[in-house]
């Protein structure tokens, strides 16, 4: 009896030791892959990683230039409105687009070594986090500039909630990446579908337009809150990215400058974000785990 307990204990110990070792090993691999991903992006460019800062900034300027007269009238903070939406959406787009073909692209490594298939989507998502960090520099810059222009500070204590929100966004984009990556191994047209879908998604998410303004227009057209109003409201609310983008704006500057009250410091909204994130993470992990044994025969 004692003996069996001991062997069980030994087995458990060696199992945990193995797990710890393989975690360390995978962490090393992921670190190398993230470095590679970030480097490869800006290879052969003169200003290198500066592009990560410039890219969202230039995008914002274009959108601001094109849409400010249509959607931004009366909003002194419209530049921030666009930038906040864009860097959140770019994070998700960058992570999923890079992750989608990652298993197939790395067939050279996968057919020669025993590697956990998870390291590829993980490293693509962590690469997106690095890019996000660079983009934040642009965000802080624009916050300073608009604060000065409006004689009102955009910086407030709610900014710290970003730290709590990011893991939820990561879970969402990682889960989605897992689903797409696994699908692409078996169906190569997923990439084309997803690219088209991303364009649609970009327009369906309030990145440059505003939810309230659109719903007001729908109401004005029908006279009351009719079918169009409810259909639009449903489409907007069913879009996970809307919730992330909206919350990010609220905590970075809206809560401070507009004096909006964040109910319970925004925790109920944060709860919704975590529900979305965990749901996608769960489904993604399940899909990926069930299919990954067969990747090797299809790449």
């Amino acid at each position, binding site marked *: 009896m004692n003996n069996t307990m001991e062997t069980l204990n030994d087995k458990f110990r060696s199992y945990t030791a193995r797990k710890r070792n393989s975690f360390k*090993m995978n962490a090393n691999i992921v670190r*190398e892959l993230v470095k590679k991903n970030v480097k490869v992006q800006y290879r052969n460019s003169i200003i290198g990683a500066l592009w990560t800062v410039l890219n969202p900034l230039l995008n914002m300027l274009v959108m601001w230039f094109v849409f400010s007269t249509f959607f931004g009238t009366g909003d002194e903070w419209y530049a921030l409105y666009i930038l906040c939406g864009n860097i959140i959406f770019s994070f998700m787009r960058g992570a999923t687009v890079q992750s989608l073909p990652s298993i197939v692209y790395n067939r050279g490594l996968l057919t020669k*070594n025993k590697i956990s298939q998870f390291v590829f989507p993980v490293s693509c998502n962590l690469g997106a986090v690095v890019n996000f960090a660079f983009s934040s520099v642009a965000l802080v810059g624009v916050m300073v500039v608009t604060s000065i222009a409006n004689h009102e500070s955009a910086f407030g204590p709610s900014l710290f909630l970003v730290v709590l929100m990011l893991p939820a966004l990561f879970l969402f984009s990682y889960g989605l990446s897992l689903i797409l990556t696994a699908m692409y191994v078996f169906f190569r047209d*997923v990439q084309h579908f997803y690219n088209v879908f991303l364009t649609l998604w970009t327009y369906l998410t309030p990145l440059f337009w505003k939810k309230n303004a659109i719903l007001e227009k729908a109401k004005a057209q029908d006279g009351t809150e009719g079918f169009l109003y409810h259909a639009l409201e449903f489409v907007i609310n069913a879009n996970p990215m809307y919730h992330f983008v909206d919350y990010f704006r609220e905590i970075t500057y809206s809560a401070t400058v507009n004096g909006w009250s964040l109910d319970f410091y925004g925790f109920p909204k944060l709860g919704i974000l975590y529900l979305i994130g965990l749901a996608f993470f769960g489904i993604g992990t399940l899909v990926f785990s069930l299919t990954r044994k067969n990747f090797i025969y299809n790449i």
Partner: protein
Amino acid sequence: MEQKNINEEVKNKEIIENNESAVQEEDYIIEVDNVSLDFYTRDEKIDNLKEFFIRLIKGKTERKAVRILNNISFKVKRGESIAIIGHNGAGKSTMLKLIADIYRPTKGTVKVKGKVAPLLNLGAGFDQESSAKENVYLNGAILGYSRKEIAKKYEEIVEFAELKEHMHIPIKNFSSGMVARLGFAIAIDVNPDILLVDEILSVGDENFRNKCARKVKELRDQGVTFVIVSHNMPQVRSLCQKAVWIENSEVMAYGEVNEVCDQYIKYCNNKK
């Protein structure tokens, strides 16, 4: 007639092997036991969603199992080297991937004790966009080394591969010989217990080939186990103690290297 003899010989060998294994079981570094591998293919390969849904509606998504390897068994003792020989498409490279734990057997078991170096073959095992240096670090990480440990080995690897001036060039601009050299240099420098070599010892220039051959002998004397897929019979005979001959997914002969090679050559000549 010929065939029957060979099969009987195989059976005898197996009995002897089994007796041996009963005596000293722990010595085996690789144990391949009744391994079969099936690949599932459809009549036509479906690799897009559109096609998949059309088939689904028509109800034509039957999968067919194709047996790549059938009932393969062999064992390798620690420090011993084994060659896998046979015609193209017989399943030799697949066997290596089973040992490397890249493929999972459909039936049977593959037991490997010790560290396996990355499979050495002519395909690209590197990230094409990254430089040779970055690839050394990536491969090191995959083999379970930390950045520090690989940094220590880096100079040695570069020196052996003779690529000092080329380490900052992306792998996509390397010649196949250079890729093979780098792959070999990494694989031998990470202190593996098992090296899986697929046709790579016959590439590269004369100079490097000799260097490889010397290094292989040196490692073998140190007790590293080699599993070699090769068509070069003199090389096989000089490097290995044992050989498995795989033909049409099955083991035709297994045993002492010279015997198996002789049988294989005889079979090839008869076929002509």
